[in-house]
């Protein structure tokens, strides 16, 4: 990144040619376009992937990504650096997405119901069936496809916990459910994914 000349006398000097996130934030506060672009490039994939995963379509994901960054950049003047910038940003992205889902009346997280027999994928259902492990590793693409097939409520919790790494208490706060609910929905999501992965693999095997 070329060093910028001119009136940004308050902006920190560049370390050689490399702009650090810290410096970019300061320069963005001054209104520096390149600084905004730098911050955007640094975090765009994660924000966009989250939005895409939660909404399931690229048009919504793009709108929400833009919205999240916009909200972030509007407030960048008040960022003091108490928590990591990326934590701040990603929480904002999660909130933007959740708000959108709520607005659309889509289920964010289903309330825990007494266990529905058809939902439970228990091993005891198929005694003697070849209960193989999902061999070795799971291909990223096939996992992605399975996540896309999850019902929205399960998907939210799974994405927030297993993909994005939020804790149950954080998820409960963001989504507005109980910690217990978050835990049980996560478990159901993982069970469902296992089932989806098996089904998809079986289908693929049959096609050969």
């Amino acid at each position, binding site marked *: 990144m070329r060093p910028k000349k001119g009136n940004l006398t308050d902006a920190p000097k560049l370390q050689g040619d490399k702009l650090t996130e810290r410096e970019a934030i300061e320069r963005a506060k*001054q*209104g*520096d*376009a390149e600084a*905004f*672009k730098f911050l*955007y490039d640094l975090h*765009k*994939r*994660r924000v*966009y*992937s989250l939005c*895409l*995963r939660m909404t399931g379509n690229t048009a919504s*994901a*793009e709108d929400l*990504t*833009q919205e999240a*960054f*916009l*909200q972030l*950049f*509007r*407030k*960048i*003047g*008040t960022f003091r650096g108490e928590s990591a910038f990326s934590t701040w940003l990603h929480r904002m992205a999660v909130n933007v997405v959740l708000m959108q889902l709520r607005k659309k009346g889509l289920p964010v997280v289903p309330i825990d119901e007494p266990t529905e027999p058809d939902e439970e994928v*228990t*091993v*005891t259902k198929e005694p003697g069936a070849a*209960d*193989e*492990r*999902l061999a070795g*590793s*799971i291909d*990223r693409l096939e*996992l*992605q496809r399975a*996540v896309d097939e999850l019902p929205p409520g399960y998907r939210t919790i*799974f994405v927030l916990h*297993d*993909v*994005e*790494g939020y804790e149950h208490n954080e998820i409960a706060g963001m989504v507005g459910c109980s910690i217990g609910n978050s*835990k*049980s929905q*996560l*478990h159901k999501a*993982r*069970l469902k*994914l*296992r089932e989806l*992965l098996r089904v998809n693999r079986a289908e693929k095997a049959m096609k050969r």
Partner: protein
Amino acid sequence: MKCLEFERVLPEYLEGNYLPEQQAHLQTCAACSNLLADLKLISEQAKSLIASHEPSPALWNALEERLRREGLIRQAQPPGFRLRSFSSRWRLAWLVPLAAAIAIGTVVKLHYPMKAGDTQPVARQESIPAPPAKPMSSEDLQLLTTVAERPPAQRAKYRANLDDANSFIRDAEQSAKQDPSDIFMQQMLINAYEQKQMLYDLAVYRSEPGEQ
């Protein structure tokens, strides 16, 4: 321990809270052992999905445009800067405090163009008397200059519209100041700003090149 029991405690197990008898069950039960391994694998592999997709480059262009329009990017405009810009600059004046107001629930007078005599304290509880008519902001003056070439009757209408828009903003700001947590007044304030923005947009629209 039976499989059914094990599955019930499986979520806790995966979090690392388990008892010896649960571990013992795993030694003897291939099905449960597979299930555990699979769920672990799924949750670990999930991490690889973070940041797995890239948005299209057009997204930045749209975002940058909005950042410029909101005055968050404050740099020299590219050549060919048109009269429309003053309505864009004006957006800074209301969108920054607006976002702050919504986020923090208070009315902020950070960047709104300070008019002479504008020294009212924020969030006093005593009744604030109606503010005296303030001198015009520079953006408003520019608006009037833009429409100066038009027929007098039309000019007068623009002036009246401007007064109405400013009066709404003043009223809404004042009420919002009296009670910063009043979300209804926050909404009024947003609406007041939206009206003024519309006035700017419609007034400058005709001044595009190609006209006259």
